[in-house]
């Protein structure tokens, strides 16, 4: 497959279109089939109870990935982003008291921007 692609890679536009088609499938399969499967059947109660804890676990894992894990090689770096750690705490406090998504996000962005200049 890669051999075939390398032959058409000389034409960049065609190569990019092929990449987009593959990317589209990679994005489509995990999105569509589970939701299709579970929305056309009766969902067992225990499954719903389990799924109730998915969002909070997933969001935590993603935040941890963004702050503590490097994008290249996936190494654990606890002190690489002190600015982001402090800003994360600020966002938590602001989200807790204001309950407003926009204020929290803007405060986080401003916070990390200022801390980035200081630290």
């Amino acid at each position: 497959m890669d051999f075939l692609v390398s032959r058409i890679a000389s034409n960049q536009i065609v190569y990019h279109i092929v990449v987009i088609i593959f990317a589209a499938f990679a994005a489509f399969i995990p999105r569509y089939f589970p939701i299709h499967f579970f929305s056309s059947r009766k969902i067992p109660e225990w499954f719903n109870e389990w799924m109730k804890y998915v969002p909070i676990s997933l969001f935590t894992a993603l935040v941890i990935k963004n702050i503590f894990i490097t994008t290249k090689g996936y190494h654990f770096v606890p002190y690489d982003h002190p600015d982001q750690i402090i800003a994360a705490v600020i966002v938590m406090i602001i989200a807790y008291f204001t309950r407003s998504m926009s204020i929290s996000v803007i405060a986080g962005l401003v916070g990390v921007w200022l801390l980035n200049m200081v630290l």
Partner: protein
Amino acid sequence: MAKAQQINPEKARWLEVLGIAMPLCLSYVPIGVACGILLHAAGFNFIMTLIVSIVVFSGGAQFILASLLTIHAPLSSIFVTLFFLELRYALLGSSLSKYIKSESQHFIWLFAVSMNDENYAVNYLKFATDKKWKPKDALLVEHYSLLSWSVSNMVGGLIGSTISINLEVVDFALTALFIYMIVMQMRSHLTLIICLLSAVLAIFFMVITHSIIGVVIATLIASFVGFLIENTVRNHSKKPDDNWFLTKLFRPRATRITVEDQRAEEEEVLEEKEEQQKEQSTDSHLPESKQHD
């Protein structure tokens, strides 16, 4: 509220939903532009950037796609990396499916292709806290965010190399959004424990697998442990809601009440009425004082 009525005097639903989606759409603009700039640097022209932002519609996946293209990674590894990265949507889709069960196949298809982390978070929160939230509104949120995301991407692709940005700062918008979502869903001691567990597991599995699949594994395990603990408590405790795991954390008064809270409250009122009736008929014991939070 008065201000909201001025802007939207006829209470058009699409405007109301737009108001709910607005913070999300705005936070997409800087990240979308950044992503467009990266894809431009990877060799995509702005039309390609627009198309890829519509069909992939995922910040993380597009950032990685750009970096894979710049290092001339083979197509097979691009596909596999993206596939694992997107695998978490299988969980998101499964957890939303109970809310859109009654919809047509066409609707489910449309809903699935334009779902991503952020609009899922908004929709999950709305489905859980707002009884009037309809699948149609959820789809509208998805489309607003898709529009904002793809236009921002295209703008990024067009301005290309003319400006430089600090990617780390821009990327933090998504982190902040997720932190907000976590705080909003923090309800009981158990959720706090699951949060910490998921954090530890995420680090562990990402380090040993060297890939994003660690996030999926950590999520599956942590959420399952949450389900197991809750289930055990409910089966073995006489008063499950008073158990330490399920007692609510202190929350400020502005906290939204979830649909489940409302249901629990209604049940409580019903129980109280029954109790009162019993007391009136038997007149045997003093009314128990019930604590409300």
